[in-house]
């Protein structure tokens, strides 16, 4: 019976981590400065005003927000100036559209310290006016901008994927719960950012600063990455090492990771709630223009860090003893074991690094906003990346992720952005048909 205890341990850990701190999560912190705000509503057939819930409003170069149950939304902006505000039409409620078709963007002049209202008129049924043209415009500026967006998504995706690929390489396990580690990155960064390290101890959360108060984003990200590594270690130590010892088959383990994924995801929802959250700092940032492209400094820095980390992982794999051991286990586990490599230790290390990288990827993905299921939404892209690059190869995941990021963003030149995640799947199926081992995989029999 002793083998059953680890699961209980993990459950208690997860529960206590969130359970004790949950009262704190219910609080809302207001921001200073200035903001753009508005109320989205439409008239129903009886002439009553119905709030439009869950509509995404983007402030170009700053960020986005979602309307709450009253249709209200407020997005903080960093300084006075003119901001283009647009409404994401795909998020409008069913059967509701803009009253004037195509008028989905406004320029809002914000003065220092004052909030400014914007207005989008909505109507039930089809709007009137300009014709609907989904044909995307094609320009050099747009290509450049999308390439940068693609690189950004690709870099974050690479960090999210590399762990999945390494874990698969060393253990043969496809970890469906990997996306939940990505979510963990966003949520735990938000948590440390808002409530500080001491907030983990629950009862301290109600105390005044510095105990219950949050740390700055940079510290929060570091804490989150450490917590992610620890989580990876715990998962391996309590669950997967036990399974390997007991000889639980890989297929059974795969199904278990699916159960784990659902369990973790709905625990997030249970304790964290369904509303999207934003970090305390750097949410309102104005894009800077570099030549034809516009990008926020936070994304630029995050991309820089991603490149450094990914190069670091590459160096780790090629230059250090640990890295060589990882690759050896990946190539041939039995041979590695018989030449004196401690396979269990290598696998444990892979889990720690892989989970930490996924956490960092998640923390960066969540720079705009974080939600209980955002990791799961990237799972499809993560799978596409590792399959494209070659399941089990570390560099493959990197190349695959960059390619997927570029392809799906550039595809919006020709296709409706709503469909861009489908392109990732299409790429994956094509690869499976013609080069099933992936771009960087070794041609071996996998059927």
């Amino acid at each position, binding site marked *: 019976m002793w083998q*059953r205890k680890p699961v209980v341990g993990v459950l208690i850990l997860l529960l206590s981590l969130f359970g004790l701190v949950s009262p704190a999560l219910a609080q809302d912190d207001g921001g200073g400065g200035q903001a753009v705000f508005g109320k989205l509503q439409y008239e129903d057939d009886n002439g009553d005003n119905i709030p439009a819930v869950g509509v995404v409003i983007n402030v170009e170069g700053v960020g986005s927000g979602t309307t709450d149950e009253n249709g209200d939304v407020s997005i903080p902006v960093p300084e006075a100036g003119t901001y283009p505000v647009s409404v994401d039409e795909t998020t409008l409620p069913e059967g509701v559209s803009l009253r004037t078709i195509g008028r989905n963007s406004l320029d809002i002049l914000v003065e220092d310290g004052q909030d400014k209202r914007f207005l989008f008129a909505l109507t039930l049924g089809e709007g009137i006016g300009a014709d609907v043209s989904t044909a995307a415009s094609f320009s050099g500026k747009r290509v450049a901008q999308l390439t940068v967006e693609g690189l950004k998504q690709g870099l974050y995706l690479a960090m999210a994927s590399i762990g999945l690929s390494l874990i698969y390489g060393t253990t043969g396990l496809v970890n469906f719960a990997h996306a939940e580690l990505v979510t963990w990155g966003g949520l735990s960064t938000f948590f440390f950012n808002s409530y500080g390290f001491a907030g983990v101890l629950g009862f301290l959360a109600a105390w005044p600063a510095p105990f219950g108060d949050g740390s700055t984003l940079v510290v929060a990200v570091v804490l989150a990455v450490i917590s992610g590594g620890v989580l990876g270690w715990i998962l391996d130590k309590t669950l997967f090492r036990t399974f390997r010892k007991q000889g639980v088959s890989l297929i059974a383990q795969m*199904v*278990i990771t699916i*159960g784990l994924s659902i369990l973790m995801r709905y625990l997030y929802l249970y304790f964290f709630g369904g509303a999207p959250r934003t970090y305390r700092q750097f949410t309102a940032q104005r894009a800077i223009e570099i030549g034809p492209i516009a990008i926020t400094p936070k994304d630029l820095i995050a991309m820089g860090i991603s490149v450094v980390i990914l190069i670091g992982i590459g160096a780790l794999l090629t230059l250090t003893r640990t890295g060589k051991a990882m690759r050896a286990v990946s190539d041939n586990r039995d041979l590695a074991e018989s030449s004196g490599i401690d396979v269990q230790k290598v696998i444990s290390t892979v889990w720690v690094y892989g989970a930490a990288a996924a956490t960092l990827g998640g923390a960066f993905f969540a720079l705009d906003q974080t939600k209980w299921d955002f990791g799961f939404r990237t799972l499809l892209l993560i799978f596409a990346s590792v399959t494209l690059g070659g399941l089990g190869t570390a560099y493959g995941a990197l190349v695959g992720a960059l390619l997927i990021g570029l392809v799906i963003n550039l595809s919006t030149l020709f296709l*409706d952005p709503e469909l861009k995640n489908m392109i990732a799947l299409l790429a994956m199926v094509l690869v499976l048909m013609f080069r099933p081992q992936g771009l960087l995989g070794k041609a071996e029999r996998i059927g």
Partner: protein
Amino acid sequence: MGIDWGIILQQFFSQSIGVNAMVFAMAAIGLNIHFGFTGLLNFGHVGFMAAGAYGVGVSVFWLDINFWVGILVGVGFCVFLALLLGIPTLRLRSDYLGITTIAASEALRIFVRWRGNRERTGASEGINDFADSFFRFNIFTRPGNESYDFLFFQYRANDLWVMLIGWSLVGFFLLLNWQLIRSPWGRALKSIREDEDAARALGKNAYAYKMQALALGGVIGGFAGMIQVISRQSVQPDTFNPVITFLIWTILIIGGVGKVWAPVAGSVIYWASISGLITFMRELIGTDLSDELERFFNLSILNVDQLRFVIFGAAMMLLMWLRPQGLFGNREEMALDDR
């Protein structure tokens, strides 16, 4: 305020053989053919449900053809989806099928809710009120929402009609399954599950068998999708999300992988116990304990429904680990190995 045990028992019994239990039993029968008998790792079963549901919906809504012909279109969609998934992946190792199927089911959902498909699939609005032809033959004729009561069971007239047809279909599929598995075709499937190379060495075309199994299980899953949307008179893209696939997996594992009638047992057990439990929790929140529950477990009426998923996620893990053959399965037969 005390706990109303009557409503808990009523939920427990009504849900045990209700529309949900029937739909998921049928879907699990399809998955049982994939995973239980052939060893195919299908993580996108909800895609087949969506294919069947949209087959009917699209036929009535867009193509404007007869509802009953629409059912055939739904079957056709499922076979087509099986071919689409099977051709690139069935020759590869099983984890590739798993990854592709989950991705394909998600892509299908994205595609049908795409606004460009508004005239065809209704996009995010879905398709509503398309199944009048089905309810025209309803033999339970109490008007409106007046319900039929019997002991702890309570159903609306339309649900009763859906259940009658649905459970008959489930019975038919069980019989079909039972006969097929005893046939030479079924034995070939099992041999592929046990050792694909050995089956091939004996001259069996494993690829063709796997494809047939994928299509057959897919069509049964498609029927589950159809009857589900018929019961609601509404096809909504977001009801076909990946969590549904995993719920079907859990139900299959509860019952026992590879046993013909186990999906039905699994579904009845799951829906009865989870409905009873959640109703109990709701009742508990209604008592004086609500403050303590909120303080210590963060449990309130707002998030009590999410417990359902937490519980089934945990159940899926524990069952697959400690009792992978399920409650009624046979461990020797269901020795999962890696293909």
